[in-house]
């Protein structure tokens, strides 16, 4: 890993951020249990990455998403390993949006969630098409087959499937993270770097 990236990660990962990133990696892997307990048809498998991006920073979010996918492969879902570039993009993009202050207003959060979904679909489409020929061992495979049966190319079909499902999933994840951080006590948030991303900008006289 280049030393400049290492330094940036080290700058973000101080104090409470280090254990918090570990918790968010675990949250990415266990969020499915929550949605299963409530019988909600959502994945929320990048909610931890988005939380880290907002509360810690973009580099830590890239680390969080990559480690979560690596561990998901270790725990019996090997296809996740090939999607590390996608979660890296999710983490970096969300981190940049948070630094720009997009997590202060609900409408910017919604817009960011949709943009994130489109970006995730664009990044995952080539991996899904060229490595797995569109088969991800998930329910969305039927969508790919449907688009292919309509006469589209494999790449187009995978991209359409991504554009049909990813923006909705990321929008929900963004809104959940926005509501979560909005309800957290400022006293605790202040211990994490990202708290600055949530404070309204100070007015200059």
């Amino acid at each position, binding site marked *: 890993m280049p030393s400049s990236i290492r330094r940036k*990660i080290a700058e973000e990962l101080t104090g409470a951020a280090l254990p*918090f990133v570990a918790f968010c990696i675990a949250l990415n892997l266990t969020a499915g249990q929550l949605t299963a307990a409530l019988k909600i048809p959502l994945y929320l498998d990048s909610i931890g990455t988005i939380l880290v991006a907002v509360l810690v920073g973009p580099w830590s979010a890239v680390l969080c998403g990559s480690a979560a996918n690596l561990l998901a492969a270790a725990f019996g879902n090997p296809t996740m390993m*090939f999607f590390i570039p996608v979660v890296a993009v999710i983490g970096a993009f969300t981190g940049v949006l948070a630094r720009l202050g997009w997590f202060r207003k609900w409408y910017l959060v919604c817009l960011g969630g949709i943009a994130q979904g489109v970006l995730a679909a664009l990044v995952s489409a080539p991996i899904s098409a060229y490595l797995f020929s569109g088969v991800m061992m998930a329910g969305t495979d039927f969508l790919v087959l449907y688009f292919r049966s309509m006469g589209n190319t494999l790449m187009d079909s995978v991209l359409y499937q991504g554009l049909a499902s990813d923006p909705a999933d990321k929008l929900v994840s963004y809104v959940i993270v926005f509501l979560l951080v909005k309800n957290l006590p400022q006293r605790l948030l202040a211990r994490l770097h990202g708290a600055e991303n949530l404070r309204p900008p100070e007015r200059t006289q």
Partner: protein
Amino acid sequence: MTPRIDISVKLAVVLLLWVCAFAFSWMYQALLCLVVIAVRFTIPAFRPQSQRSARAFSRFLLYSAAVAFLVLLLNSLLIRGGTSYGTILGFALYEEGLLFGLRTASRLLLLTYAVLLFFISSPLKDLIRFLQTRGLSPSFTLILLLTLHFLDHLPARIHQIFLAQQARGAPVDAGVLARSRALLSLLSPLVLSSIVESIDRGTALELRGFLNRRTNCEASIPSGEGWNFLTILILILSMVILILTIFRWLPG
């Protein structure tokens, strides 16, 4: 005692299988999938390290077999081209779709079996230690080990919060919208408690000087012992197959 194979050799085997997944035709890929399954049962160093890993491997075999069958069936039904092989419930099966399905399924199975074989036979703590000897920083190591700790404890904590919120009257059994709102009442205490725990752990780490003694931590870990001969051999083989495949793809 189980004979040990160096983690670097196992990683090289994964790389070789990945190269084969793109270089060879579907028949060789299917054959390699069978070889991987045979290796898991015959070579002691590639056997699962725990009952949990063994169960994960068996579950994934069944799951992937079902997915491979579905991929074959749906592609041959929906992608129309070439000769028709017959009908199922009035739907025709086509050659082009069947071949595409075979290529896709065999590649997918080989890619995933290779990763799975590595992870079921290599304990995560050994992998982390290997990465540490190859230069992984103590902070990353700590994050990975803490994640394993959280993974052990999170399900119980989620269950506890779920029961507590249910007892307080959270609509965990109502309609989809109400249940979605209840998700926040479960996530909020979970994230809140994790931040509190993170602050405690972070303070403890700072007090022990963890974040400022990078050189000491690195010094305590033995440095990489050079590359294993078998690893180099497998890596060279992978490179040769890759180069030959690229030459085969080139026009003319």
